[in-house]
């Protein structure tokens, strides 16, 4: 899960570890009560130094995604399962922000962008299972 971090990525390594955990929680691959590796194990698996592994755990604690029980280890927080929907939403929001950023750079209007999203989502090869609201069904 942490063996392929990318040192060259602009995101610091400890952040990349935090992101991995968040993504796993968002997808339900990690659930409340699951144990995380110890700092030593994490450092080994991710091939980072222990300070970096410790920073990642601290950051996860600060986001209330994990809880550390002294002498027993670090676990995914009890509230994580309820938060997975929220985390997924944040992921989507970031992707939207990125689209908006590029559109802004290119000077594309809001209307144009919305039209593009609409037409793209209808193209067969990108057609995704977007949930349609009842009133939209024609």
């Amino acid at each position, binding site marked *: 899960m942490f063996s392929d971090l990318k040192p060259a990525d*602009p995101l610091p390594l400890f952040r990349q570890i935090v992101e991995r955990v968040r993504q796993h929680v968002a997808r339900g691959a990690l659930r409340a009560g699951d144990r995380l590796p110890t700092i030593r194990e994490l450092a080994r698996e991710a091939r980072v130094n222990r300070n970096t592994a410790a920073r990642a755990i601290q950051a996860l604690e600060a986001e209330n995604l994990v809880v550390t029980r002294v002498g027993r280890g670090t676990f995914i927080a009890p509230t994580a399962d309820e938060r997975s929907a929220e985390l997924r939403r944040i992921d989507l929001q970031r992707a939207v922000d990125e689209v908006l950023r590029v559109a802004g*750079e290119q000077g594309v209007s809001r209307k144009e962008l919305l039209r593009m999203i609409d037409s793209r989502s209808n193209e067969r090869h990108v057609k995704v299972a977007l949930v349609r609201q009842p009133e939209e069904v024609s």
Partner: protein
Amino acid sequence: MSRVALNFVDVHRHFGKKVALDGVSLTVKAGEVLGMIGRNGAGKTTALRLALGTLHPDSGTIRTLGFDTVSQGMAVRTRVSLLSEESALYEDLTVDEMISFAASLHPRWDDDLSDEFRERLHLDLSPKIKTLSRGDRAKVSLLLAVAARPQLLLLDDPTAGIDPLVRREVLEGILDAIPSEGGSVIYASHLIEDVERVADRVLVLDAGKIVLERSIEQLKHEARRVTAVFENSAPEIVHDAALGVRRRGRSFDAVALDRIDALAGTLRQAGARDVLVSPASLEDVLIACLREDASSGDREDVKEMSHV
């Protein structure tokens, strides 16, 4: 024990006419891993040997683990390990004999740690040192450096010239060797990716001077790559914030650590059609710093580092 593992104040050292270190001041805290980056001849090895006390400064003061490296050299050398390509290995000894010999020299030697590393690194005890591959020699040196349980571990390009698979093993060994409590490490290398995995903070040396010193996190947070496209060929832009500027045809490319908006503004004023600001990698930053520093002279060897 001192909370500061290493302290250099305005250290100068030259060899004949060549200036190796030119007024270097630096501090390594206890428990910190400092990455030292620079080309061959930038002063990395000199700095490490000065820290160990096998070399003395021309001027300036050095304290290692609170000891004066000149007057208290023995105290320093029993607490500090240096691993370098020229690490003293006795060619006619077997690996086993080499380990026993080193154990007899070091008061803090840890047999369990030695065994653990021998297993981790898959080291065979019976061959003579002189028959070992470069990778295996590096492994033996690493084991010796680590099992002496140093409070400060100095690593001088420990993965240089080792094939990628063994390099990975050695790097993992180094990461595991970094003491969990209070011990400090200086990791000098020209491999930026390895430094990034190992270090908390990075220091760039060029021609005996520190050209950049920052935590990796801070660098990644601040550094931006600024690219711009011009209608015709990119004009020569002079701006303090722009590091490692490259102009190719219509495009302009630089790295900036601060005043990014100001740089972007200057580029737009100069007629840039499209200015793009994106996150920069550590490699982008370091190459830009070295290119910047070399631009006064006429040095093309920066390229060497961008290809590793």
